[in-house]
């Protein structure tokens, strides 16, 4: 069946089964490969995208359910929070293998967009659905704080 997906502001037509998870439609059919596959059952967060601004595990969200909604992948991350996080990730050398990091950044972006000054506990709550087997958790936490500060400073200056 044909579906229309709105990804990073662009509309894409594709002909797949409606029960296909959005992750595979995006990766295998639309070639946005920044979002990763880690578990396929909403356990690891590697596939996280934003759907209407909410961090969402797309390995369990069907194409049929994603139609008509605003989908943002790591490739289309443009919010000041997202960009500040990406900058902080490079500066603090957060990624090791990097495979989980698209998902980490998507989850962290949703967090900062909703909560500009998260506490450690807020960060733990928002980020504990994202596994990192390389163990970069401390740097992720520092990265979120650095980015939060950068966004606040920027807004203060503006």
């Amino acid at each position, binding site marked *: 069946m044909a579906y229309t997906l709105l990804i990073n502001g662009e509309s894409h037509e594709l002909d*797949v*089964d409606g029960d*296909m*998870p959005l992750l*595979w439609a995006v*990766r*295998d*059919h*639309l*070639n*946005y*490969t*920044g*979002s*990763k*596959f*880690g*578990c*396929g*059952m909403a*356990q*690891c967060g*590697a596939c996280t995208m934003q759907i209407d601004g909410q961090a969402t595990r797309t390995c369990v969200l069907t194409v049929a359910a994603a139609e008509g909604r605003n989908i943002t*992948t*790591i*490739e289309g*991350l443009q919010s000041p929070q997202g960009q500040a*996080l*990406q900058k902080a*990730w*490079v500066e603090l*050398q*957060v*990624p*090791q*293998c*990097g*495979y*989980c*990091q*698209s998902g980490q*950044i998507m989850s962290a972006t949703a967090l900062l967009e909703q909560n500009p000054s998260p506490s450690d506990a807020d*960060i*733990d*709550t928002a*980020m*504990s*659905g*994202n*596994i*990192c*087997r*390389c*163990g*970069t*958790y*401390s*740097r*992720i*936490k520092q990265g979120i704080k650095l980015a939060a500060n950068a966004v606040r400073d920027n807004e203060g200056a503006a």
Partner: protein
Amino acid sequence: MKASRFQSQDHIDTGRRQFLKLSAATGAGLTLGLNLTTRASAQAADSPALQFNAFVNISPDNTVNVYIKHLEMGQGVYTGLATCVAEELDAAWSQVKCEHAPVDTEKYANLFMGQQATGGSTAIANSFTQMRQAGATARAMLVAAAAQRWGVPASEISVSEGQVSHGSHQASFGELAVEAAAQNAPAPEAVSLKDPADFTLIGREDLVRKDEGKQNGTAVYTQDVQLPGMLTAVVAHSPRFGGRVKSFDASKALQRNGVEQVFEIENGVAVLAKDYWTAIKGRELLEIEWDDSAAETRSSGTILSQYRELVDEPGIVAEREGDVASQLNQGDSVEAVFEFPYLAHAQMEPMNCVAKVDGQRAELWYGCQGATSDQMAIAQLLGGKIEDVKIHTVFAGGGFGRRANPFSDYVLEAVRVARGAQGKPVKLVWSREDDMQAGFYRPAFVHKLSAAVDDQGMPTAFQARLAGQSIMMGTNMESMSVVDGVDNASVEGLVHLPYQVPNRQVEVHNTQAGVPVQWWRSVGNTHTAFSKEVFIDSLARKAGQDPVEYRLSLLKHNPRETAVLKLAAEKAEWGSRKLPEGWGRGVAVHTSFGSTVAEIVDVSVQGTEFKVERVVAAVDCGIAVNPNIIRAQIEGGIAYGLSAALADEVTLTDGNVDQTNFHNYRVLRMNDMPEVEVHILPSGNAPSGVGEPGTPPVAPAVANALAAATGQTLTRLPLRLT
């Protein structure tokens, strides 16, 4: 983003073809174009790279390309090796780019292993001098070219930050590249290397990592490889290890729209489809009957209870020093039995591999860790020549040992599937469940440790009996690791005890089980460090001594462990920092892969629940090539070891693996992550490993902290208070 990211060699563009021609003489450079960032920046058409040696290319556009002979799987090897090259080349860090070297054992062997392979925390250690020489010889060629061009003596020319200069003359590397590459390359041993006091890049904290694109989704992993006409394959494996396909019915699967092929391969039934989801759906429709006549059907509990019986019996002697038996029979003795489960690597990227097979020729794209042995295994399977197997290495989404399989398991599976795909490229993808249940685990082990102590509580005899599967026997690593029936990978960490004990004996029972086993971040040290360090704490408690002081008194002849332990104790304020009520503090120190790491752990306990609050680590890994990456590796090694201490465990029921995915194979998450502090001991010694040595000390340090807090000595992993 929509363009095909990877192009097979039949589809190369003109610029790339020119590049290939240029580099064909040396065989290097074939991986150029694999990485988007490299392809974009190298501008191959206008600015062909010039080969200086197997590791260094310089382009007229001033890019220095470093070929990395090891797999970048997060351990920072791109950055580390490039630092060594750039240091001696006197390049500007910003002009350096990295890409994986092709598989070519002669040029790119791991100098410690004699084959091209990444592992054993050897990447920096084996390449440190080699990479510096590669940089220094290329520098000498640039200087020779400048001397010729300017008519000045080479000895008067200076090089800094990618600029070659003499008096009023100045030229960039790029400007000199063509002339320099035409110079005779000096022998690597003929060039002199810098005095460490003159290092400008080695030891720097602030170098941007060279494994780029991991913050914006552009870094390319096996899972992201797309080739024209490519199919995705999944394979139905036997639920039990050693099971075989008896019969199968593919008719329903083949009716599913998008499923292109279904066929049997040696270890299962392959389903090929236009995408992963369709392949998975097709696989669900297969009807397979398995032949379990040769399969492992025992439960892990049965296997472990057999091991418990074995450690009461003498095993093969791995080390004997003095006379343990008579000591154990007289004085005061202490004994403990330790138990370790099977562990899955559970790296974030489930195993996968892209292959294209054409008769006896094969081309592969994947995070290739065991390069030489994979290449040989593929050639053997196809009955072709080594040169007919072309491997393109991409980033690995973690590995922790799993990607270098002693039998090339997932790689040969991909080749077998591709062989049936009529020349089409195939991406083999394992689901998380496939990956979790595929075996090649850290072997389960039981240890029985015994010691005799004198009236001061100091050990006079130490005996360790281990039972578990050998990792190396029956693999192509056997000759490197197994001597007289003893696999060093089983006993490392307990033999050559750092603590001074006059009588010592280590014995091992090599058990047989149908569960495939493999190295897992820090290999034998994953279990030996635990029993050793928990046991030594028990001895200290029995002697009524402080665990750090007790260790130091047994390490008098061992300045390295002493210094590392002292540094950790000082930084953690051992003995002086007061802990909140209900907290405990524990220590462990262990040497592996040439590096010594001490870790001091604080835990808080509430009933039978506990949380690891803080870890202070000290490490001596020789010269710190990149302190920031060393810290990252120790942090990551701690997290990985902590995951096993707190939660990881693979169990079998009647031969079926019980765990399937992250809901029942629990791993460390952010809310469990302690604060971690890493201190690096200054050193002028040759660099040693950092990828693995952070892992072994953490579990015993946690157990020792729990013992301090609760009085319970835990001897089984994962740790559970009662």
